[in-house]
């Protein structure tokens, strides 16, 4: 029981760190990716490009010339690893990575201790490993090496192939006495994937990769294994000594009133919890006051702002922390999504306008009313809205083996006319990958539209922002369906 609480607590901390409660910022150095100058004898399968598109399904791979992104193309069936010139002891390491479907690869600290970067999203993947697993051996060097074990993360917060993911590792190198005898094991002090703590304080008694190095030492390079398609960018790091640990570790905040957080967990049925949610984009103390979070026992969840008909959060992993709603007087009064959260634009679902250059409004136009929801036997809601004389039913359900959410909007009453538009996504960047499949906000999630409807989509650029819309005519039977994939 205690372990469970500690786990929850850590997740809670992970989320706090996401909201920016970080004391002192470490000073980073970068591994430049203008070319491959920072790597030793790199093999041609490793290439520097400007941009890349994979997945999420077995889609064709595309790349764009340029610099800043390091990619393993597997060209010439070459699977050589990539080794940095930089060698490190204690290190805080951060980077973005993008997996191709079914990729399964490893990054090795000091060329010796592995963390698995695997596609744990695609179905029928040949590995059951969850992204972020640690390769671990449990015996000391000198003894016969035991079989490798893969230590899974606390929860699966991996994203779909083709999306940028973020890994943050705090690694402590093994220590040796003057005679070269090991005094202490290497340790992974913290590992967070996509903003969520997945490992804390894991001892690594022995090396897990033996091709380049046979012994433990206090320094070594970073090694990216070359056996699968993967891309990296923004590789940065910071060395630290014992005294500087606090600067690199994400801080352990004391939870509200020193108690165990009140974590809400769907057990069998879906949970719909009405709540306030924080409106991170709009400054201090701003809350969205008519929200619902909807959680599934299969760990796929969303948050919706009912005043806007807008899905505002998508996440996987644990459901919500309701501590600030229910502890004491509940002064903060916010439902805090756990797991790795994707924030959507939050702009209203509907708008009417004559001129196609009118920017999408930030708040719902006149004539809208949220009118409640109906639960099905599983406890999943169908939301009911009225907008300018029209009535809509909105249903968001997990699909494709709980890998993504599919949203169906049905017009129940009224004639949509020619001025009604529906917003599918908005953000800084929206890229069309193939017919009906779009990557939003620098590939942080996908929107996929029903194939029959995608011809009606308008992807427009208004004042430097991208908006993905469909006209009201797309609501024709059997309704409008699109998916949020991440």
């Amino acid at each position, binding site marked *: 029981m205690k372990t469970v609480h500690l786990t929850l607590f850590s997740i809670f901390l992970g989320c706090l760190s996401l909201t920016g409660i970080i004391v002192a910022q470490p000073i980073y150095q970068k591994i430049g990716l203008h070319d491959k100058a920072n790597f030793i004898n790199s093999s041609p399968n490793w290439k520097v490009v400007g941009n890349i598109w994979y997945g999420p399904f077995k889609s064709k791979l595309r790349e764009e010339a340029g610099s800043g992104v390091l990619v393993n193309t597997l060209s010439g069936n070459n699977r050589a690893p990539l080794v940095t010139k930089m060698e490190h002891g204690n290190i805080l390491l951060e980077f973005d990575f993008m997996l191709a479907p079914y990729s399964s690869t490893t990054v090795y600290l000091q060329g010796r201790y592995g963390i698995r970067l695997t596609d744990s999203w695609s179905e029928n993947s040949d590995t059951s490993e969850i992204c972020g697993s640690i390769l671990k051996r449990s015996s000391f060097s000198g003894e016969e090496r035991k079989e490798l074990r893969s230590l899974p993360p606390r929860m699966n917060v991996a994203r779909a192939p083709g999306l940028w993911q973020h890994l943050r590792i705090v690694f402590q190198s093994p220590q040796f006495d003057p005679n070269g005898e090991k005094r202490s094991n290497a340790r992974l002090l913290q590992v967070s994937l996509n903003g969520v703590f997945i490992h804390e304080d894991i001892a690594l008694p022995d090396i897990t990769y033996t091709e380049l190095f046979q012994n433990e030492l206090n320094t070594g390079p970073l090694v990216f294994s070359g056996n699968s398609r993967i891309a990296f960018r923004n590789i940065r790091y910071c060395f630290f000594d014992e005294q500087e640990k606090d600067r690199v570790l994400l801080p352990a905040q004391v939870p509200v009133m020193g108690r165990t957080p009140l974590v809400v967990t769907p057990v069998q049925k879906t*949970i719909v919890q*009405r709540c306030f949610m924080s409106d991170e984009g709009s400054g201090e103390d701003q809350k969205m006051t008519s929200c619902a979070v909807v959680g599934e026992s299969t760990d796929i969840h969303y948050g919706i702002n009912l005043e806007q008909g807008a899905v505002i959060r998508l996440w996987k992993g644990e459901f919500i922390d309701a501590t600030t709603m*229910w502890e004491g007087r509940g002064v903060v009064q916010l439902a805090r999504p756990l797991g790795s959260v994707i924030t959507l634009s939050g702009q209203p679902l509907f708008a009417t306008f004559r001129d196609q250059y009118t920017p999408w409004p930030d708040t719902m136009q006149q004539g809208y009313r949220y009118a409640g929801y109906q639960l099905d036997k599983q406890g999943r809601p169908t939301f009911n809205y009225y907008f300018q004389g029209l009535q809509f039913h909105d249903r968001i359900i997990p699909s494709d083996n709980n890998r993504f959410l599919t949203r169906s909007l049905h017009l129940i009453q009224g004639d949509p006319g020619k001025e009604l538009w529906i917003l599918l996504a908005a953000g800084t960047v929206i890229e069309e990958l193939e017919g009906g499949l779009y990557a939003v906000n620098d590939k942080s999630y996908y929107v996929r539209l029903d194939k029959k409807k995608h011809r009606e989509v308008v992807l427009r650029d208004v004042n430097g922002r991208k908006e993905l819309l469909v006209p009201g005519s797309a609501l024709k039977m059997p309704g409008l369906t699109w998916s949020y994939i991440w």
Partner: protein
Amino acid sequence: MKATQKICFIILVLLALQIVPTLQLEAQHDNHSVSSTGKPQTEDDFYKIQTIRPPEGVLLEISGMATLPDGRLAVCTRRGEVWLVENPSGTRPWFKLFASGLHEPLGLAWKDGALYTAQRAELTRLTDADGDDQADMFEAICNWPLSGNYCEYNHGPVIGRDGNFYINLNLADNGMSNKEPFYGEMGSHARWRGWMIRVSPDGKLEPYAAGLRSPAGIGQNATGDIFYTENQGGWIGTGYITHVEKGDFFGHPSSLKSAGEPGSTVHIKSTDIPTNAPMMHTAVRQLPGLKMPSVRFPHGILGISTSGIIADTSGAFGPFFKDQVFVGDEGHPKILRVFLEKVNGEYQGAVFPFREGFMSGILRMAWGDDQSLFVGMSDRGWSSTGPERWGLQSLVWTGETPFEIRSVKAMPDGFELEFTLEVEKETAENPHSYEISGFDYLYHMTYGSEVQDKKDCSVKAIKVAADGRSVRLVLDGLREGYIHEIKCKGIRSEKGLPLLHDFGYYSLNSIPKGDSLNPDLEGVILISGETAAMTVNKSEPAQAAPSRTGRIPAKHVTVMPASWAGGPDHIFTIGTEPGLKFDIEQLTVKPGSRIKLVFDNNDDMQHNWLLVSPGTADEIGKAALDLGLKGANMQYVPVSDKVLYHTSLLQPRSKEAIYFTAPEKEGKYPYVCTYPGHYLIMRGILNVKK
């Protein structure tokens, strides 16, 4: 001189014996009725409390209750669940989860096969369409804006005789910000906050009345008129229950921010609000449209946080209380009783103690189909003085008749007191049996109010009705607009019993027109001026009216003594923590050390800080509670050698530094807040040792 001393002594004795409602943790009711067997009668002899336990693991922080036509009890909770309790009065009630996921629903009402609740952002109808006892339709009937402040509670709905829904929209907590210096600690930060709204069955919102602050209760009297209860705070000198009619304004000016909005029914401007801190009876004369609450509850004496309202239309608590109204309290877990009458077209009346000893702060009440009253409790993080944080209990009349003041009615020249049992004529005709005085509270931005302008009334004539069930009192010194304290300590029943509760407070908002009591009628006892003066025209004890800053100087020094050349030996700053706690509960000093103590009341309620002699925290806390009406004026600091040092009664979010020398004698000296009831938990220890 001697005579004066004697009177003073008598008064002191009377003060000491004065019956003030005790907190439920205290088992003794030594001044209460004595049965024929000689055992003192208690509330428990007449009204039994029974506890209904939910299944293991269910957190029943009750925030709303409704009885279904089939006798099941529906309760909703702070965490957004709705439970159906089958056979709630039985020994084995059965709980079934009807709905979950609501956002802090604060009321339940049943209408035409559906449950209605006000959750944070809307009025919602919950329907079980497929008959499996689980709600599947959650329809938003009416939506409203919010700023997102936790204090924006929505109490209700109550379904009026007109079929509409009535809901109270609580103000937001302004917190430590002082961002609204005129409105004070609570503010309206979204449209219609601080209003009672009326919602038609098709969802149309009508702003109904304004000036609400923290209106935790909404309900109906026996005839179905709409009433609400208010909590003491800024602009609200003391809690109350009041009748509400369309267009009423009850005084909290922050709600007037919406008064200019389309549909507003109140047209007072913030600039119309008097800022010279008038007494409430003056304020209602100065400001047309400001409504005097029907019945005000003296703060700290009859509760501190009024909440749920329920009328006994069936006489479930005895035929003598039929049609009276019962009001819960969320801070002191007790139920108060209210008698209402209409005088000159408006409701007014009296409030009496009724039943204490519940397990937690009371929020809601509902009648069962077997005449029992279900009492739903949750302190909701506001620290009630009850032993539990939440609970569900029932209250059942035993069938025995308590000897109580059934009602007090205003008369052109005094009051008529009605009793539940026949009174002993001799005691009822004795003017010494009564003590009556009038007082008021201020209308100002400051949190709460001290008792103002308290003056005694003298009894001029008494007439006991032929049936011995009522007493007509003619009084000198009645004042319109004042609350009148009516104590009948000397009254005995015909069987010689004292009253179970021998006092009440009548809000004399209006004096009825009509003839005075004819002194020539048979049975009228006229009281000579001298006797009257002897009984009630007393002077206050010398220490009872201290100056606000002065008190007894050595105990309350707010400037560093000139002799402390080297400054204090210790500077301590003590704040508060939610849950009625000091943030520092242990201090250690050497005997005789010079201490500067800063009490930083960072809480949102009033507190003081008293250092008392070892082992006397209970005694002093109880003595503060027993100060009654004088309590607020004395800042709840009892006159006692055992009080060593103290601060003033500090307003929320204010601080004060006091200077004192630690006792020379080693020991554990408790420090305690003596605001009514707080002493039970809000304490610390100053450890004096070499």
